[in-house]
């Protein structure tokens, strides 16, 4: 325990008054007034948020979520009320947020990669069946359409709901869960349009009252021989029957009108018939490693995966190298105190960093337009920038250079100023040429400070979706494959495959994301290991 060690290591007797400002150093520390107030406030907010979040969790019966919430709240309370556990007091907020916003999404993505979650496969099988059966209710051919007044027996808010119906001839009927009965025309009063206004023993509901009882209204349907009479809105009712019915025995859906039978296929999450045609609504199933293996084995995907991967590396490395080179060059030039107007140059050169990248990508895209773009007009050329692979790649790198060099300029300036000037002066005195001095003294010291930033910049540009998607959208595309373009990154390729075709395929996109994550994680880990060797320089 840190506290006892510290105390024992000093030879002084314990001070009479407890040490105040070193947290946790003495268990007899009396907390200060503002500290206590702050603690009360923060703990109060945490408790309030916990309770606020608990109600929806309980209603949805998500016990796992509730357990996590209770656990997290208990941990926070325990850590901040006790005077012990000092390191945890500093680590808990960051750790909890890390778990919530980094670890959990990653785990969720990996889990999604094992399913076929996507458009048409979003819910459970029961939801799909309910949707198919519900959507198949059609009006019984030749049946009457009734004018409807929703009424209640007695109190509008609590009485049993009934349908007061009139057919096109004006004959009144009463519709309840037991069936359709005729009403005595004398006991009802009709409006000019033919709807029932009042009826003996029943209280008509207006739209607001009927809306308040929507849940009960949804359950009310009047059974008839052909089907059931349901409400269509609040002023009409029709006799409808569902055309599709689910049979649990054969695990299939039969359409009574056409006789088509679709059987549930739990490997793909659809109802399919003999020809392989499926019903529109499907459900989410676990597909195991299928998403992962299809990335590697599907010929369309695998064929272009490698070439896209190569360009992805080239793009990321070149982005970093070009911006670093230009940023370092400008930083070296502006590092000279004898240069006048340094502030002015600095402010102008920082401007690209201050501009919102999203908007700048769009502006650059329009500047590269073949016929109307600024670049072609200034240079007087007719180059189809985004039409050929090489020119598109050069264009994208030019945009990256413009947007990224000022960041590198800033960090290089900072790093340069941290290198003591007497090192280079000593080299000069020794007769070293400027470039030699730079290469052997300044540059290695720079790299010590900048290597992590360069690696981070590489990792960022490896997945720089907006840089490619807003400028070239991944193009130009070869004639035989509209899916993989010459400037496509893995992430834009993933996006197109997952969301471009027949709806969103989140499961497949998650699987490719996991691959990209592994690639970037491995490269970053290796790079960080190697940059530790640079530390030896200092």
């Amino acid at each position, binding site marked *: 325990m840190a506290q006892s060690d510290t105390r024992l290591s000093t030879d002084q007797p314990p001070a009479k008054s407890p040490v105040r400002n070193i947290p946790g150093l003495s*268990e007899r520390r*009396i907390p200060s007034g503002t500290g*206590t107030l702050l603690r*009360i406030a923060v*703990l*109060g*907010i945490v*408790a309030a948020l916990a*309770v606020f979040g608990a*109600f*929806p969790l*309980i*209603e949805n019966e998500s016990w796992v979520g509730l357990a996590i919430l209770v656990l997290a709240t208990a941990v926070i309370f325990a850590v901040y*009320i*006790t*005077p012990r556990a000092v390191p945890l007091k500093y680590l808990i907020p960051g750790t909890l947020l890390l778990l919530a916003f980094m670890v959990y999404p990653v785990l969720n993505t990996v889990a999604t990669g094992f399913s076929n979650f996507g*458009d*048409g496969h*979003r819910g459970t099988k029961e939801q*799909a069946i*309910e949707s198919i059966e*519900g*959507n*198949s209710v*059609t*009006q019984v051919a030749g049946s009457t359409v009734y004018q409807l007044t929703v009424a209640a027996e007695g109190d509008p808010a609590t009485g049993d709901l009934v349908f007061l119906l009139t057919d096109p001839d004006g004959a009144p009927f009463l519709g309840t869960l037991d069936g359709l009965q005729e009403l005595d025309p004398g006991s009802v009063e009709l409006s000019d349009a033919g709807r029932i206004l009042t009826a003996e023993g029943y209280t008509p509901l207006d739209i*607001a*009252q*009927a*809306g308040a009882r*929507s*849940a009960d*209204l949804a359950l009310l349907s009047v059974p008839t021989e052909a089907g059931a009479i349901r*409400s*269509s*809105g*609040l*002023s*009409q009712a*029709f006799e409808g029957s569902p055309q599709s019915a689910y049979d649990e025995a054969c695990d299939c859906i039969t359409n009574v009108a056409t006789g088509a039978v679709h059987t549930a296929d739990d490997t793909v999450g659809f109802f399919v018939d003999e020809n*392989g045609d499926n019903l*529109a*609504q499907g459900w989410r199933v676990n597909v195991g490693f299928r998403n992962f293996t299809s990335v590697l084995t599907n010929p369309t995907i695998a064929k272009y995966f490698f070439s896209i991967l190569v360009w992805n590396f080239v793009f990321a490395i070149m982005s970093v190298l070009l911006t670093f080179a230009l940023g370092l060059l400008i930083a070296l030039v502006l590092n000279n105190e004898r240069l006048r107007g340094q502030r002015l140059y600095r402010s102008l050169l920082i401007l690209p960093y201050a501009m919102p990248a999203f908007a700048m990508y769009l502006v650059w895209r*329009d500047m590269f337009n*073949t*016929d*109307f773009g600024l670049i072609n007009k200034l240079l007087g050329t007719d180059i*189809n920038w985004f039409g050929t692979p090489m020119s598109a790649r050069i264009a994208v790198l030019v945009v990256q250079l413009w947007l990224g060099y000022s960041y590198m300029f800033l960090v290089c300036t900072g790093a340069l100023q941290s290198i003591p000037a007497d090192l280079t002066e000593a080299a000069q005195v020794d007769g070293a040429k400027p470039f030699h001095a730079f290469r052997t003294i300044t540059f290695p010291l720079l790299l010590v400070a900048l290597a992590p930033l360069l690696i981070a910049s590489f990792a960022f540009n490896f997945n720089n979706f907006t840089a490619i998607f807003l400028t*070239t959208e991944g*193009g*130009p*595309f070869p*004639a035989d494959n*509209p*899916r993989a373009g010459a400037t496509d990154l893995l992430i834009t390729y993933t996006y197109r495959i997952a969301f*471009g*075709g*027949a*709806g*969103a395929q989140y499961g497949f996109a998650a699987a490719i994301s996991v691959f990209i994550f592994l690639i970037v994680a491995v490269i970053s880990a290796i790079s960080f290991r190697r940059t530790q060797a640079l530390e030896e320089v200092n």
Partner: protein
Amino acid sequence: MRWNRLHAAAGLAALALVVTACGGDGDPDSGGTAGGTDTDPPETSAASEDPGSTGAGLTIWADAERTPAVEAAAATFTEENGVEVSVETIAEELQTQYVTAHQAGNAPDLVLGAHDWIGNLVQNGTIDPIQMTEAKIAEFNPIAIEGVTFNGQVYGVPFAVENVVLFRNPELAPDAPATFEEMVTGAQALQAAGSVSEILAMPVGENGDPYHMYPLFTSAGGYLFGEDETGTYDPSDLGLADPSAATAMAKIAEHGEAGTGALKRSITGENLVSLYTDQQVAYMLSGPWSIAALETAGTPYEISPIPGFEGLGPARPFVGVQAMYVSSSSENKAVAQEFATNFFTRPEVARAFYDADPRAPALTAVFEEVAAEDPNVAAIIEAGADGDILPAIPEMAAIWDPFGKAESQVVGGEDPATTIANAAAIVQEAIG
């Protein structure tokens, strides 16, 4: 750990704040914010003071352009019935956000969108069919009803019909061209005289724009999906794989960058209208959504149907239908259905909607009334009279990307036959 009085006081105070959190929820049932459709406080504060309103309200989602019109209709409904209706604007990706919200249990009761969403919305189980009487259905433009019908059921209440047309600057080109070639020749003469710099403003872009190219494609004999006896699109008959597609693309290639230069990849949806308003071009192929920009710029325009190719068939554009859908997870389904089928389809409500957002109304009676006053609306519908309803089947989503890129490559000068054959193969594989 020694509990002293201050620790106890801290714990008690924290619990006291907990109690205030419970009580300050505002909702009569504390689980009111739980997953279910969200019952946002209404924007029409007048209704909340109405003693008749009971807290059962409707939520409608619309995009930015249509929100004012929907808000006006919602206010009328609230006034008549005392039910609170709140309208929320979703500026981007309304369809995706709606499906995601539905899955999370937060979907609105009603949503406005294009009819080609229906395939996707139905396969995700997010919308309910709309039951309208035959008499009511007959009041609509037949192509509007065709657009919202899917698998034999009507899924949305249509309120607007739109298609692309030819905008023409009458000062530069006084007469409407009868054929595409006539338009190109006229524009080339203007180019030679120096009045314009481009022949035609039709968005192509690097990745193509099949929506705008479709009328030329159909004029030259192409089609996307065959139709079965009932008139619904049959995904097994893929028109892109048919020889007619290669012929059609060859015709389009004649006007590409290697041909007359009428179609250019450097013209995109972004620079389209500004080309026309800067008077760099006399002809523009666009839809009613561009009219607002033209009015603001004050450039004169006349609307005429898109001319077909000489000696070939008429140019049939895609017809798009805007409709209102009822969410399947709505807690107020009866009132939502009432709003959609009985209130929204009233002629005076449809007319008010048109006044706020001028698109050709789907109700025939309202359309005729409006067409008499606004020549643009009449011209747009006339241009689309022959049009094909944009297919709403889920397989359509697999067509846009490959077809568009094929178009861009053909315009750029690639061989039409092989390009379209490749596209057809990709689509065939995607739809299975």
